[in-house]
């Protein structure tokens, strides 16, 4: 280290701090010290630590509207994220944005220099996305211990995606997952199938809708407009499902929450599930509904999604130049009691 210090006209302490990633050295100086170290053949493996070994801190940002009553899905997603971070000895700080701050695009966490990267949980408004990512792109934290020339702080979107975003994203396997649950219904002999969900409010639901279409097209089954139901009144922003007079034999629901609401509407009409009509959901997350515990559903593997989000943000801290990617995490169908097998020869299903 003395040789490096001499070559760069700095103290040995400065070189030691620079190589160990400690504060007190400007980014420019740190880069020059590293280059000199390499040129002199210094064994950098002694000083370089992997992000998992340094005390990396991640900022986790979510919106308050996701953490309100009936939306504990995102609390669980958050818990999985901090667990995944803890397994890698990574610290986390949480910020929950209220409506006004999300609209303003202001976040206290984003301006903190000790945060190395961010995970955004649940879809954020466009203003927030543009402002937060612009801030990220232009920031050049002088006391950041990021070792690369690229000073962007990586952002990973968890459970949502926005086209054109210069960042990674991790989502559930919306398109193929919905294809799977629709195929499950056709494997059980159903030919008249509808879809319930409001794509206008969620990109995830749009993808699930097209997954449903994929199966219907593949099986040469007609997609009937009257069986494509929305699940809310967008003007009042309240749940609302209007059932047509003639019903299909089965419904694919964009989420378990929607399936719960559909079950309520079917009950009002005096229809039983699965005896009169079959229902399959997406999320494997239904609480506080009489339907809970009976709904066959596609499981969303939050643990794996959170693990992947943490892995991606750490990887980008270490390798900022890699291409951005969107990861779709697949899972399995959890069979319960909401689908009736109407095929001529009912298939023997796998356990669990």
């Amino acid at each position: 280290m003395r040789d490096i210090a001499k070559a760069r006209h700095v103290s040995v302490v400065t070189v030691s701090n620079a190589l160990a990633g400690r504060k007190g050295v400007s980014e420019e100086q740190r880069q020059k010290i590293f280059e000199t170290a390499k040129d002199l053949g210094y064994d950098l493996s002694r000083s370089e630590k992997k992000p998992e070994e340094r005390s990396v801190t991640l900022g986790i940002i979510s919106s308050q509207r996701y953490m309100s009553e009936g939306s504990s899905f995102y609390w669980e997603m958050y818990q999985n994220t901090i667990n995944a971070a803890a397994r890698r000895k990574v610290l986390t700080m949480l910020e929950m944005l209220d409506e006004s701050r999300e609209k303003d695009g202001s976040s206290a966490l984003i301006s903190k220099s000790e945060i190395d990267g961010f995970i955004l949980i649940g879809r954020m408004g466009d203003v927030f996305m543009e402002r937060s990512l612009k801030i990220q792109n232009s920031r050049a934290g002088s006391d950041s211990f990021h070792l690369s020339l690229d000073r962007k702080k990586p952002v990973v979107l968890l459970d949502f995606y926005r086209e054109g975003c210069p960042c990674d994203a991790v989502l559930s396997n919306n398109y193929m997952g919905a294809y799977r649950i629709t195929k499950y219904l056709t494997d059980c002999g159903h030919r008249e199938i509808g879809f319930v969900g409001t794509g206008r409010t969620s990109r995830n639901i749009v993808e699930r809708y097209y997954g449903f279409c994929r199966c219907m097209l593949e099986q040469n089954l007609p997609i009937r407009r009257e069986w494509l139901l929305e699940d809310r009144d967008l003007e009042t922003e309240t749940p609302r499902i209007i059932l047509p007079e003639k019903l299909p034999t089965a419904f694919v629901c964009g989420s378990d929450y929607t399936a719960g609401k559909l079950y309520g509407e079917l009950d009002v009409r005096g229809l039983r599930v699965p005896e009169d009509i079959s229902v399959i959901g997406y999320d494997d997350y239904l609480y506080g509904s009489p339907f809970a515990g009976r709904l066959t559903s596609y499981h969303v593997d939050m643990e794996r999604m959170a693990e992947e989000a943490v892995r991606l943000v750490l990887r980008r801290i270490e390798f900022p130049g890699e291409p951005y990617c969107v990861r779709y995490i697949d899972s399995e169908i959890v069979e319960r009691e909401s689908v009736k097998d109407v095929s001529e020869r009912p298939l023997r299903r796998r356990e669990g």
Partner: protein
Amino acid sequence: MRPRKKINQKDIADALGVSNVSVSNALAGRKGVGGELLVKIRKTAARMGYGAEEEYAGRTAGTVLIVTPVGLTEDKAGWLEQTVREQGMRARFQTIQEVLNEQKDDGAGLSGFSGVLAAGQLSSEELSALERISEKNGGKPVVGVGFFDNRVPIDYVIDDGFHTMQAAVFRLSEQGYENILYVKLDESGLVSDILRRMRTDRLLGYRSGIYLRALRSGQDIEQAEAFELGDEGVILDWQHFCAFTFTTCGVNSNDYFQRWNQTEEHRKSAEKCQTDGRTAFLCEDEDTACRLTAFLMDRGIKVPEDTAVIGYYAQEELWKGLFEKGCEIIYDRIRTGKTAEGIHLVSGSWIEAEE
């Protein structure tokens, strides 16, 4: 046991067909190598056991067994072997019948292999049999490449035509193309199930891209209308297209259009062939894109000055990407001991044509 030959940077460079300098820069984290090549070099190095962490030393990727419904041509086997070699692994080939026969004979099954890549659609029964053989052999990873079976819980690698086309619509919109038309050929019935599904994914990706674009621009479109959105795809009759392509001199483009205008559907499609510089044709595959380009240029329509034509990966390149991912999954499963994770989607990337 014979000591394993130590892998050096030249071995990695040879496997990938790149320079030693690129490999050296990539592994040292120096500038000069970025993006996909950087990722590729690092992954291949890891799989070949270069500088492996002590925990994983010796656990190199080894040999994969590629199982197909029927035997492969020498040509196909050749480039598959090359693809696998670039991933730092070796390949052996067997048909599903050969594997099942061997299993009956001595039950040795998959010993000597790191995992199995099932290429080409096998039946649920054949896949289940492969899965059972793998469990008997210590749970060797089995990966279905290019297809998916809801009933057999192994890993699958599928071309993500859906998201790739969706992203293409977005990109074209960003570049100012207002009118984006999808070009597909009527299926002649000679298409395999795998290819048919891939095409469905691409068509739905285009439609979802059009829908999302409409929502982003503030249009309030109900779900029920969404499915019909994007149905302005130009469908070219396969028979006419073939006739145009293969007839020399005799058929000119005007004559083609006259025949094309005979049906109402085709006439409407023809009207949409605008050449105002803001129309883009998104083609379901490279072959369609080539034929369409030739057709347009013959009518005096310049590509890309008057209109853009975008194709999709050629089949060989696409399958190469899927097999690379298959190898990656096998290696990851060996290294971590993870169980099967279901469907893995392989997305495309935008490639500008060379001048």
